[in-house]
């Protein structure tokens, strides 16, 4: 009976247990539901803040002042949060509270190092369904999204040589308008500087966010004189180093329409101890003809009247290189400093090679007292003073070797491990574009001088005498060759800076004036992977720019730049915009 009573008394216990279990289960299920909801909200919110930080970082590009940058960032962050986290998502009690902030990172000394950090903090009240039984009606859910963006230090290097022309519609004016449009595409956290160059390179603006000033300086450009590309690139590089933002995207954008034709060096004086003993006649008689329209310089008369070589049908000597010159300096160890240019109004082989120019506005050409007529610089014929062009220029670039290369090149002696223009003859070999609409339709594309033995002395270097093997100062053609070698070498040297990792982009407008175009040169300066066809190559069309061959001097360990080429000056606005997209990642 006792057992029976006990069984009776236990009756209903299962119900209690069941009731307890239900309470426990509901608690567990409730916790699962509430925590699950919070988890869902948190996941969505963190996706939203990430998107907001990324998009907000981009939006800073579209501001023209730091104040609008802040506004843009805030607006964009709010917009992207809203797009990814709808108000009321999972019954959240309100729209998310968004706090977007951004700041510039700084180095150990407190100076900006070129990185912008974007941070978006958002929080939202998540409702509870079961926890409210315990008095918890809502839970605050927060998420933080961060993104960073490399700032920009960009040096715009613009060619203002005479071949750019002047007046409405000229390449010079179109380039200015394209560059001014380019200046509208930067953010107040970018730094843009301006260098222009003719025979002298001018630093007009150090890198800053004063884009109005840069635009005004672009508008004031007038194009004339020669093309001292090397000094301009070097100023740009120095400015990048001065700005001192190693983590920023350090960029040089080089625009040019032709071959460089100025070199800056300490030139050895032409003095008796080392001078070539041969003498030449008066240098400006007879006056040389203009170069325009000559497809081959075989037709140019002997400007030196030195009687060297064969004569043409008119009985005028065609081998007109004037290496036989008077020596006018007295101390053979002296050097002359400045920029030696090809100059205009001269022929390729000797006459009217003028004096030395100032390389930059702060570097002056100097001539030692041991050289007579020193007061006449820069108008005197410089070949009277300079013995030869040294192999290394003032900046440390190789004027004779160019850059290390492997593979095939149209121009250089790649077999010797270098791509250079030392064996190249410019302003020869007239080729016409397969596209009828290219204006002008035909241009000299140059050729190996060894294939034109009857032209001049067929060499850019002295082939005999005390300066044998050195580049000749008396031939304008050689100065272009040295200028191209030096520019490629300068670009290589700039890119080998592993602190600032500069990248060089180039825009090439071909077809201006009589300057020969070179299909490799600016691709090598930019370190672009491929050599593209020029408008004068047979495969060129207006819609495609076929790859001709791989860049023989492509440096895999250096920054790759963009190389853009056009024969249509009105395409420049688009090409500058392409570079803006490249450096700002706006679109592509």
């Amino acid at each position: 009976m006792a057992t029976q009573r006990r069984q009776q008394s236990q009756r209903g216990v299962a119900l209690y247990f069941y009731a307890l279990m239900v309470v426990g289960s509901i608690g567990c299920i409730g916790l699962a539901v509430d925590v699950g909801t919070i988890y869902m909200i948190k996941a969505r919110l963190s996706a939203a803040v990430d998107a907001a930080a990324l998009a907000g970082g981009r939006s800073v590009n579209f501001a023209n002042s730091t104040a609008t940058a802040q506004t843009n960032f805030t607006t964009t962050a709010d917009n992207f949060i809203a797009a990814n986290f709808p108000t009321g998502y999972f019954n959240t009690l309100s729209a998310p509270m968004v706090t977007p902030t951004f700041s510039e990172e700084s180095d150990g000394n407190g100076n900006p190092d070129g990185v912008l950090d974007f941070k978006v903090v958002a929080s939202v009240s998540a409702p509870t369904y079961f926890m409210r039984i315990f008095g918890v009606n809502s839970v605050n859910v927060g998420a933080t999204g961060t993104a960073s963006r490399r700032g920009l230090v960009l040096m715009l290097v613009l060619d203002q040589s005479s071949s750019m022309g002047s007046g409405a519609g000229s390449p010079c004016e179109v380039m200015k308008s394209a560059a001014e449009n380019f200046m509208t595409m930067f953010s107040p956290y970018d730094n843009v500087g301006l260098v222009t160059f003719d025979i002298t390179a001018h630093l007009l603006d150090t890198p800053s966010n004063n884009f109005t000033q840069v635009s005004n300086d672009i508008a004031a450009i007038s194009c004339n004189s020669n093309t001292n590309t090397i000094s301009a690139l070097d100023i740009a590089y120095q400015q990048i180093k001065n700005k001192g933002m190693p983590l920023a995207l350090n960029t040089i954008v080089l625009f040019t329409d032709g071959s460089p034709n100025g070199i800056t060096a300490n030139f050895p004086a032409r003095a008796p101890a080392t001078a070539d003993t041969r003498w030449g006649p008066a240098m400006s008689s007879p006056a040389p003809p203009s170069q325009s329209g000559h497809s081959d310089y075989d037709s140019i008369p002997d400007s030196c009247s030195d009687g060297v070589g064969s004569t043409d049908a008119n009985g005028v000597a065609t081998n007109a290189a004037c290496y036989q010159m008077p020596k006018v300096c007295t101390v053979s160890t002296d050097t002359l400093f400045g920029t030696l240019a090809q100059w205009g109004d001269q022929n390729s082989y000797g006459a009217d090679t003028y004096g030395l120019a100032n390389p930059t506005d702060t570097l002056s050409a100097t001539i030692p007292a041991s050289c007579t007529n020193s007061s006449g610089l820069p108008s005197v014929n410089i070949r009277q003073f300079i013995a030869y062009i040294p192999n290394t220029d003032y900046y440390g670039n190789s004027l004779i070797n160019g850059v290390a290369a492997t593979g095939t090149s149209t121009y250089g002696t790649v077999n010797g491990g270098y791509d250079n223009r030392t064996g190249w003859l410019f302003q020869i070999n007239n080729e016409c574009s397969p596209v009828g609409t290219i204006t002008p339709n035909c241009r000299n594309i140059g050729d190996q001088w060894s294939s034109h033995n009857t032209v001049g002395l067929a060499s850019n270097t002295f082939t005999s005498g005390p300066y044998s093997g050195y580049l000749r100062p008396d031939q304008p053609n050689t100065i272009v060759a040295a200028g191209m070698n030096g520019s490629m070498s300068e670009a290589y040297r700039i890119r080998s800076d592993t602190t600032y990792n500069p990248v060089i982009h180039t825009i090439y407008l071909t077809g201006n004036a009589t300057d020969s175009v070179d299909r490799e040169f600016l691709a090598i300066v930019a370190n672009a992977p491929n050599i593209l066809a020029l408008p004068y190559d047979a495969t060129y069309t207006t819609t495609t720019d076929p790859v001709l061959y791989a860049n023989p001097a492509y440096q895999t360990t250096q920054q790759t730049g963009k190389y853009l080429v056009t024969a249509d000056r009105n395409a420049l606005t688009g090409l500058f915009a392409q570079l803006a997209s490249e450096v700002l990642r706006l679109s592509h």
Partner: protein
Amino acid sequence: MQSRREHSYRRDRKERGNTLLEFGLVMIVLVPMFAGMFTVGMAVNKGIQVSNVARDAVVLMVTAIENPNSGLDLSQTQNQRIVVRAANGLGMASDTSYDPSTTGLSVVILSKVVMVGNTECSLGITPAPTGAPPWNASNCPNYGSYVFAYRVVIGNTTRWTSVLGNPPNSATITNGVVSADDIASNTGDRVASFTTTIGTGGSPFTMTSSQYALISEMYADVSAFNFFRIMSNPVIYARQVS
């Protein structure tokens, strides 16, 4: 002892079948409940996964679009496999090599929409006409409009379409990238009612000139887990705008 045994025996006989009945009654409630829990649980799980795939795809797009030199071209099958593997279990793969199936149970649609401004017009209308820049709607037809700049579809390309619509057939799209010319000039490339489609809570989503948005959408058919047809439309959709 005898009497108790008899009593128990009698009681057992009397209650025989009750357990089965109770079990049956409980099961009527429990089975749909567990099935529902399973379905909802799986749906939530898949929903999170779909949302994460959309988010991952946008991160890939950021890399592919903001750094063209990265070599991450999402129009290539080899790179699409990254997305397919992230969507493992959502019926996107066609075989063990993780190649996307065009007849599978899910799709990821990647779009980039840009508000055409100075940069896009400068890029797309070349050579620039006389007097441009500045650009406006007369010298650059899409100036001020939202247009497609990128579109890649990974997975079932026919069953679902983007809420934004599609770039027109007339547009030239290379590796997913709409040509600069189409962006600036092809009026068919505009995204109809972009601001209201992406905008939420009644406030339109606006961008400033030349600003762009990367949009990744994912649809997944989860009807395999839809017991008792609890979900009337067993398709999960998630979108990430970055």
